[in-house]
């Protein structure tokens, strides 16, 4: 079973308590009616589908209930880090350095 660290609970817990919630750091346009159809489509549907370290959202559904962000390697399924929602995107080089 995958173990996930919740940055709010500060505990490492079974994946079953969590729900995956898609790619992270996708900002909703402040004024959707001013956005072109193409940009709106990109916001709604177009994702990077990364092979390797992926910035993604999770929710501690059966727990504190909070959404947070994670960097997970989609090849190995290893979590490089998790961090609070709203925090800046962590630098990938420092994360992969830590794995070595």
């Amino acid at each position, binding site marked *: 079973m995958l173990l996930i660290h919740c940055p709010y*609970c*500060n505990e490492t817990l*079974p994946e*079953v*308590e969590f729900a995956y919630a898609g790619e992270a750091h996708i900002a909703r346009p402040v004024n959707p009616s001013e956005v072109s159809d193409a940009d709106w489509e990109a916001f709604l549907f177009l994702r990077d589908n990364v092979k390797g370290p992926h910035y993604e959202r999770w929710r501690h559904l059966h*727990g*504190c*209930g*909070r959404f947070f962000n994670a960097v997970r390697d989609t090849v190995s399924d290893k979590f490089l880090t998790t961090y609070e929602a709203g925090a800046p995107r962590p630098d990938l080089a420092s994360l992969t350095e830590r794995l070595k």
Partner: protein
Amino acid sequence: MNAPISSFASGPLVETSAARVSQSAPCGRLSLRARGDLAPFEAVLGLSLGGPIGARATAGETESIRLGPDEWMLHCPVEAVAGLEAALAPLYGSHPHSLVDVSGRETSFVIEGPRASELLTMGCPRDIETILPGSGRRTVFDGVTVILWRDAADRFRMDLWHSFAPHLLHLLETGSRELAAESL
């Protein structure tokens, strides 16, 4: 509105040498969401809302458990709900928050006995021993969100929504019997 589930007989629902499960008496339940300065809420409730997620506090017959960074569950006698709502209402203007009476939504099982924590491992994927006596957590039990209050090493309360109660009771019953048969 907080009527006991009619399909359950009174008295212990499960009783084996491993564990006993019973339904607790109806109580008032309030869901509190608040952020920022908690002091005004603590002053009204007379208890501390701080501490890590899972921390509990008691003041008289009111109990609180911190479920998340900005979320608490309060238990109190049924008659005390209206009083608590009235006492916290003046804070809406200065400290926006949400206080919802969820008494009618949930019930609690009391799970106790020498193998109570082992019984919980049958439905709960997390390490029960990380929930210390006197604390609690919201977690999952057999696919259902529950709040576990660990009152003692061998005594838990499990808050769950009414509609899931018969389903979870079946697992608790089967599990208790299995554990009891093992020790024979």
